[in-house]
């Protein structure tokens, strides 16, 4: 667990956090605009979040 490893892990978490945060934010905006489409928006949000998290975990394993 050297210092570059830890710094890399931190950067990865920042990246994942920003990505999923933005998705969550735009999902909230979309739900606010059209409450009847909440189901579809939630589904799409989950899929996008899982994709980003997948990369995050893979990179975290390498770091």
């Amino acid at each position, binding site marked *: 667990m050297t210092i570059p490893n830890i710094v890399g892990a931190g950067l990865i978490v920042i990246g994942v956090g920003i990505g999923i945060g933005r998705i969550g934010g735009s999902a909230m905006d979309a739900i606010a605009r059209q409450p009847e489409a909440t189901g579809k928006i939630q*589904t799409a949000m*989950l*899929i996008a979040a*899982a*994709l980003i998290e*997948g990369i995050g*975990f893979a990179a975290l*394993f390498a770091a």
Partner: protein
Amino acid sequence: MYRKLLNFLSIFIFIFSLNSFAQDHGHDTHKKEENNHKVEQHTNSHNKELTLKEQIKEDIRHHLLDSHDFHIWQNISFPLPIILWDNGLHIFSSSKFHHGESVAESKGSYYAISHGNGHIYKTDASGAIHLNEKGFEANEKPLDLSITKSVAMIMITGLLLLLLFGGLAKSYAKNGGIGKGPGRLLEPIVLYIRDEIAIPNIGKKYYKKYMNYLLTVFFFIWFVNLFGLTPLGVNITGNIAITFSLAILTYLITTFTAKKDYWKHIFWMPGVPVPMKIILAPIELLGTFIKPFALMIRLYANMKAGHVVLMSIIGLMFLFKSWIGSPLSFGLAFGLSILELLVAALQAYIFTVLSALYFGSAAEEHADH
């Protein structure tokens, strides 16, 4: 015809799952042990607690890795059979190994379990395992087809799924379209997979061919993840060989049931200028490999990381030994377990959705191109 293909593929995945132990390397445990070490460095270490730390490490390792005996509770464990192929079939009980300490002898050849990564190696009567210059074991390895903990759990899960769904199907026939019995819980989930995952992605015309696989993969991953959360200590999808076999199945199904339009889109993408087409072809080809690869890594990393963190926090609970530290760790572990329940279902859902997406791109045929 497709039923036969899917039957063949399910036998294929069964064989892969038998190999799963032999292919899991010890690299992950090394990293995770470092992780645990970092967590435990913060506490005071008296002489007594050093052995507690080591004991915790051993327990965590035991939970995360596959093993040749099924350890259910403190003293209740039963050894699982070991099946080796080494110019002849060797079948014996893993109790001959005495938890890795002694050398097992079968039909004249000797086998020992290496302490480093828990694999079975062929050795001589003294049980010596030679390390090569990089520190890895250099003995010969027989083909390891034994029934390990993971394999036994997969079989149990398969049996459970057969019982649940088989019972549900029979009750439909008996009761004229109304299901009875415990399988009733699963009916809305099956309908959800058909109506929200399969039909939107694959289209009404071809979705039926893929429903078998989608349903199997969803319930298999979900149930196996749920079993991983029990105190039995089975971490099945946290084993990269298992997720590799699942991803390979998705890849094989997309490749072998793909229509002409799919290959046209990969190698000669319509609607772009010719230089772009030539550049796009290798990238798209690489994409067909990377998409199942990402499926494998996503499921594996999510499950393994979740288990490691959960086990570490539980281990932390034993290390603190103060009035405030242990209950806090317990609360954190409890909360994380609830999250893990969500992650178990979510990972199964994501795997299914992405597989359906890939099948959709394989099975679609445009009229407008």
